[in-house]
Structure formats: structure tokens, C-alpha cells
């Protein structure tokens, strides 16, 4: 095995955005078995250390390829593009950022009002939007091979995934508060 090859090669997958999740999982198990540190329990120290490095790399590769956003960022990096590059004024269109700001405002308000129903509704709405964005991103990467457009789409998804995490945080916070109240009652 070659430690320096890219994650797609490691998993014997074509470097595309749309990917066979079952094949990814199957290959992960196979790789994990072959590099598992237990198999090297009797081996020398150098070999054991190498197997641990391998296991870590296999895990990192799997996590990266499994998550759509991480996969998109990785594909762009392989192509020499950096979606995180300094914002640069007007890099995102104003309407999109305005909309992001409105979403944040709604999350803040729902959290303040302790409204789990409102947060769940926001989460659903966002999930639909994000789903559509990922489908568009797949088309940019795999059908149109338009990397510049893929960078823009990936940047939008980075904002949206951040927003999704924020909604999840708010929900977890309210659920914890509710549990604490129930426990105290």
C-alpha cells in the first residue's frame, strides 16, 4: 500500500462527487482489517507504528469521503482550488448573505423564545435547501466539470452547514434544559 496516494485512489473510487456509499463502506472495512493494529501485535515496533499511521490515514480518508461537504472541499483541494481562500469583498452575492443573516436572526429568536417547534421547522426548511444545493454541486462537479462554479457552491454550503450545526446546538441546548426541568419536577 502507498501512504501518499490520494483518498479516492486509496478507496479505489473514481474522484467524483457522486459516490457509491456501499462501496466506500465495504472498502473501509477491508482496509481497516488489513491495517488494524491488533494484527501487528507480534510485529516489531517500527511495523506497529506504521500500522497505526495507516489506520489513522484510513480513518481520515473515510471521514473525508463520507461527508459530502468534506468530500467537495477535498475534491477542490485535489484540483488546486481553495474554497476557504480569503473572503475578498463581494465574493458571495449579497442576496445570499442577506438570507444567511435572516436565517441567523430566526435561529436566535427561536432560541430566545425557547421554541423547539420553530427550530425544528427551520431545520427542515434548511435541510431541503441544502439537499438541493448538494444536487446542484454534484452536477457542477460530475456533469459540467465546472470547478469555478463548484467553489462558489461549496462556499455556500459551508455557510449552510454551519447554520445547521447552530440549529442543532440550539435544539440540544433546549432539550437539555427541558430534561433538567423534568428531572427537577
Amino acid at each position, binding site marked *: 500500500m502507498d501512504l501518499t496516494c490520494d483518498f479516492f485512489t486509496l478507496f479505489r473510487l473514481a474522484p467524483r462527487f457522486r459516490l457509491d456509499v456501499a462501496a466506500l463502506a465495504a472498502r473501509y472495512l477491508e482496509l481497516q482489517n488489513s491495517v488494524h493494529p491488533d494484527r501487528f501485535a507480534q510485529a516489531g515496533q517500527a511495523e506497529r507504528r506504521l500500522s497505526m499511521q495507516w489506520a489513522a490515514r484510513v480513518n481520515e480518508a473515510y471521514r473525508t469521503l463520507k461527508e459530502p461537504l468534506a468530500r467537495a472541499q477535498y475534491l477542490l483541494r485535489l484540483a488546486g482550488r481553495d474554497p476557504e481562500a480569503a473572503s475578498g469583498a463581494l465574493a458571495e452575492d449579497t442576496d445570499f*448573505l442577506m438570507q444567511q443573516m435572516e436565517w441567523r436572526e430566526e435561529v436566535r429568536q427561536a432560541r430566545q423564545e425557547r421554541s423547539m417547534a420553530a427550530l425544528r421547522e427551520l431545520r427542515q426548511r434548511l435541510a431541503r435547501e441544502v439537499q438541493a444545493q448538494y444536487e446542484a454541486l454534484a452536477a457542477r462537479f460530475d456533469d459540467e466539470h465546472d470547478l469555478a462554479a463548484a467553489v462558489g457552491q461549496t462556499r455556500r454550503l459551508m455557510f449552510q452547514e454551519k447554520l445547521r450545526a447552530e440549529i442543532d446546538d440550539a435544539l440540544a441546548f433546549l432539550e437539555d434544559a427541558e430534561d433538567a426541568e423534568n428531572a427537577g419536577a
Partner: protein
Amino acid sequence: MSYSVKVIDHYENPRNVGGFDKDEEDVGTGMVGAPACGDVMKLQIKVGKDGVIEDARFKTYGCGSAIASSSLVTEWVKGKTVEEALAIRNTQIAEELALPPVKIHCSILAEDAIKAAVADYQKKHSA
């Protein structure tokens, strides 16, 4: 990570929070964002006939440093001409707020927001 006294002051008492009507002739609006941390920043300037910025407002969703950076620049741009406002550099913001290296991008965002607001104002007046 600990915030400097100045960051905490701007965070707890943000100056000039809010907004103007973005369709007004004398208002320039700058919207910028940083995808890596998800921060979104809106900076607006109200410019007098003489080209001097009379007032400024901001709204920022992000960390304490991003809020402090935008709060600070609304204070700094007031009384400056739009050209002078464009001369504000992120390094000055970072220095004033004693931002640690990992938070420099917040000051860059604030500088970009000024540029975007001025560009929007100038676009309205170029015609």
C-alpha cells in the same frame, strides 16, 4: 482563548448596531462573509453631500472578535471621507483590538465590509 479588554468592551457594548434602508441614495451597504467560520457581516454607511460619512451601522453574526471588529470600524469611519475610509487596514483593526493570530480573519472581514459598503455607495453615484 481569552479576549482582550477592548474586544470584550465592544462585544458587551457594541456601537452602532442596526441598519439603514439599503435603497436610500446616501446609504452604502457592504455584505461580507467568511465560509470557514460561517460569519456574516453587514456594514452600512450614510454619506453626506460633501462625501463625508455621517453615520454607520452594523449587524454581525459571528464570534466576539468579528462583532468587535465591525463595531470598531463603524466608529472609525464616521467623520471620514469615503476615500479615507478605504485606507483603513485590517492590521490597524487587529492592533487596536489586540486580536490573536487565529482571529486576524475577523479584521480582514471588517476591512472587506468597508470596501464593499463604499463600492455599493459609489455604484449608486456613478450613474
